[in-house]
């Protein structure tokens, strides 16, 4: 990936018609730890794998509340994500003051995409180095969006971003057809299963590095982590891990597939 001639400024096109700085920013998202999202016809769930710098440090928060009905999961530069989250929270509050009603998440996400695009078209700034999964619920139902540094926004039924997210995506592709009718708890379990597949070879999904959030009709955005996550992790262990063990993945590291596999690799 050494295309040095055209990658110095975000305002320079490469001969192939690419903005290399924007693509490099998207690489930054791929380096962040995994974040997955999925939604049924009643709820939208996010799951994230929290990294810690060392054994002595805390795990970096990856799920952020934006409003009662909107939350995000981040992958990439955390500081950029905080700036974006702050802007989103401000927009939500302003909208509530002016219109007396919660902001429609599709609108917020469109405006967010415009903000991302602006950073790709000016000489003095750089693209945001973070991808967001936005989970929300408005009067039409739950939504899941993915944003990336290029300014593209897509709405998804289920998706995963960050490192080793391919195994998450593969698992979600297998189960997505049943998503619409899925109950709340089963939705969370599927998020946990998808997340477990994204853990690196010598680790496992624990109450410290896992976090899940849920938002839905009649349920405000809530983050489930720590001991509250334990029942789901226990169920995962009883199931003996998840199906990601059988899938091929693209990273060079060895894929972890579930709690029981990890135990074997502890040596």
């Amino acid at each position, binding site marked *: 990936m050494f295309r040095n001639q055209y990658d110095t400024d975000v305002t320079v096109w490469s001969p192939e018609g690419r903005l290399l700085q924007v693509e490099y920013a998207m690489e930054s998202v791929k380096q962040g730890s995994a974040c997955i999202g999925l939604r049924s016809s009643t709820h939208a769930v996010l799951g994230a794998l929290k990294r810690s710098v060392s054994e002595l440090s805390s795990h970096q928060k990856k799920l952020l509340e934006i409003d009662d009905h909107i939350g995000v999961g981040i992958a990439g530069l955390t500081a950029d994500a905080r700036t974006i989250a702050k802007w989103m929270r401000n927009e939500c509050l*302003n*909208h509530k*003051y*002016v*219109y*007396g*009603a919660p902001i429609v998440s*599709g*609108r917020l996400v*469109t405006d967010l995409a415009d903000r991302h695009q602006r950073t790709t078209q000016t000489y003095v700034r750089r693209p945001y180095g973070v991808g967001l999964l936005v989970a929300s619920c408005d*009067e*039409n*139902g739950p*939504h899941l969006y993915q944003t990336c540094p290029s300014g593209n926004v897509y*709405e998804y*039924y289920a998706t995963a971003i960050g490192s080793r997210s391919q195994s998450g995506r593969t698992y979600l592709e297998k189960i997505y057809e049943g998503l619409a009718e899925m109950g709340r708890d089963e939705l969370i379990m599927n998020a946990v299963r998808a997340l477990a597949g994204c853990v690196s070879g010598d680790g496992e999904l624990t109450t410290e590095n896992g976090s899940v959030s849920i938002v839905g009709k009649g349920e405000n955005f809530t983050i489930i982590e720590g001991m509250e996550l334990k029942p789901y992790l226990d169920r995962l262990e009883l199931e003996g891990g998840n199906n990601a063990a059988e899938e091929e993945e693209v990273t060079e590291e060895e894929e972890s597939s579930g709690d029981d596999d990890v135990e074997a690799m502890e040596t």
Partner: protein
Amino acid sequence: MSLSLTSGGTSARQPSSISALSAATERTRRPMVTGTSVLGIRYADGVMIAADTLCSYGSMAKYKDARRLVSVNAKTLVGGGGEYSDFQAVTELLKRNALEDRCTADSLYAEEEGEEGCAREVWNYLRVVMYNRRNKMNPLWNDLVVAGFSSGGDPFLGYVDKIGTTYEDTFIATGFGSYLALPLMREKYRPDLEEGEARALLEDCMRVLFYRDCRALNKIQIAKVTKEDGVLISDPYEIETDWSSAGFMTPKGELDGDGGW
């Protein structure tokens, strides 16, 4: 959010020596072309509002076919009294916002396409616009009635005035109507009024207003918002008036007292 009307009144670009002078000419001090009362009422099927089609130029009845009831989006009507140019600016702003909403809507839910507008949000938005202008001592000189359905599906009727006062109620009257029509509406109102009854009540109030408000006209428009049909605004039509009552016919000189009551 495009609150472009709220920038009225700031003369930040001018040096301060001139600003005091030009600021005075930039502020609304009094309305020039004015509409009078707007009435609104909730009934069984939805919400109905009425206004006459007169814009007065002081004491002159200048524009006798002005439209003071405007559809702003698929579920919302706005009626305005007061300065007509400000009313036009407000409705253009609201229509532009509605267009922007329609154009940016996009979702995996197919049903969301075509679902637009919420009267309560329009009312809230107007509150912020009017109050902001009031704080700059340069108001949009209007009394506005917002009628329609909220996104929750409930009928909505609300009032916003030039200083940003807001309230919602089952029936509303602005201007002279708040003195003459409200007592009539209070007496006759029921939540389950049929369309014909609601219309008759509003026409009756408009008739009384024509008798007693010097800036009113007997040509009116009625508009309604219902769940099935959305927004419908009638063409202007004349209401019948009867000037043969004793109170009008008897010359005041022949009465005991001075003709007042």
